């Protein structure tokens, strides 16, 4: 009998997802193990809220299950998944409009109960600054940088997620990094 670890190595994302589509829902567990961290990282990068990010990761996998019949196996599973992740993120902010009206209490709450955030605080200065700079970027620029990170700079695939050309994605990444650099330098001066 094969162990999950062996399965992880032998099955491609697409093959696994096609199995899920055929009704072998168990196989989604393997995809979950592969992608829970990048997805969590993406949502956390967007919201800085660990609990919310976990909920959103869960939402992504719920949607993958719900819309599994839409997966055709032609494109890349990861691209499809991040497409869903982006929609989940947008839907969440559209519903709650959290980004704009956050109370101080919710921040305190988050700092108090969020182990992940305290881990974050222990990281080195440079990373801390970068995180801060990233947080100060507008949502769309932060999103493109995180997508570039978690999609491992596959600009063509990111273009599929965003619905634009590879060239346009590169320009977006360029602009976002430009701005990140500017914010970063500004923070350095303040320190």
């Amino acid at each position, binding site marked *: 009998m094969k162990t999950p670890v062996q399965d992880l190595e032998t099955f491609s994302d697409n093959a696994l997802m096609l199995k899920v589509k055929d009704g072998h829902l168990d196989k989604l567990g393997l995809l979950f193990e592969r992608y829970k961290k990048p997805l969590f990282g993406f949502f956390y990068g967007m919201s800085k809220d*660990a609990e919310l990010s*976990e909920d959103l990761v869960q939402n992504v996998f719920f949607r993958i299950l719900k819309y599994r019949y839409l997966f055709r196996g032609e494109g890349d599973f990861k691209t499809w998944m991040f497409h869903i992740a982006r929609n989940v993120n947008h839907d969440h902010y559209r519903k709650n409009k959290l980004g704009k009206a956050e109370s101080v209490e919710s921040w305190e709450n988050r700092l108090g109960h969020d182990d*992940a955030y305290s*881990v974050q605080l222990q990281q080195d200065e440079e990373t801390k600054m970068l995180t801060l700079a990233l947080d100060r970027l507008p949502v769309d620029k932060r999103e493109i940088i995180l997508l570039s*990170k978690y999609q491992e700079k596959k600009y063509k695939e990111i273009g599929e997620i965003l619905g634009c050309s590879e060239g346009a994605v590169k320009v977006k990444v360029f602009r976002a990094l430009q701005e990140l650099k500017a914010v970063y330098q500004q923070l350095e001066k303040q320190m």
Partner: protein
Amino acid sequence: MEQERINELVSKYNEGQADPAEIKQIELLIEEGRIELSQLRELVQLDEQVMRFEAPEPSGDLDDNFYQMLKTMKGKSKGFSGSRFFAWPEFAPKLAFASVMLIIGFLGGYLFFPSPSSNKEVAELKGEVLEMKEMMMLSLLEKESATERLKAVSLTSEMTSVSDKVTNALLQTLNNDENINVRLEALEALKPFVRDSRIRSELVRSIGKQESPLVQVALAELMVQLQEKSSVKELKKILENENTPRDVKKQIEESIKTMT
């Protein structure tokens, strides 16, 4: 733009010397694929920092919640799910198949069982044709030429059902036509309708009206076939007639014998 100028722009950017207009140019070149992001050193450094940057780990709750959800969904997917059945990508072929079968059904029904309305039309048409044939037959019977009258009588053989008008005309011809062949043909034409008791009794009565031995013998033979005993009386009258030829008498006597 020449490659040299592009290189110049890139190095200017890397030195932090590019002005906004030049940055715009760089953006265009990036979009066209003539400058790769990896050429822009300073940005690459920042990008690498972002890539290295590790996000915190999700807690164990995420796993628990996920596997709980998977379990629930597995339970659900085993049973019949209406939303899944009607989910468009899967439902579309089912719907298409059902529609095609429905159309085939309708077509089959239409082809193999003609609708009552078309049935009615056909019946009406048939009726009209029959009426026309009858009219033609009746008018032909009044012609002087015996051939025409023979044609008229033979027309009835093509009719599956006839009106009283036709049978009366045939009986009239059998009794009164001057041509013996026509009379014989009329008798032949009446044979399909002998089930009708009125026609049978008319035929019996016709025996006394015939003078031609040929017709008398033909009638006698028919009476034997029908076992029409009421005809014996009429047939005996022929026997009593002095003018009846001997051969005919012999024939008729035999016919009477087989019936009694």
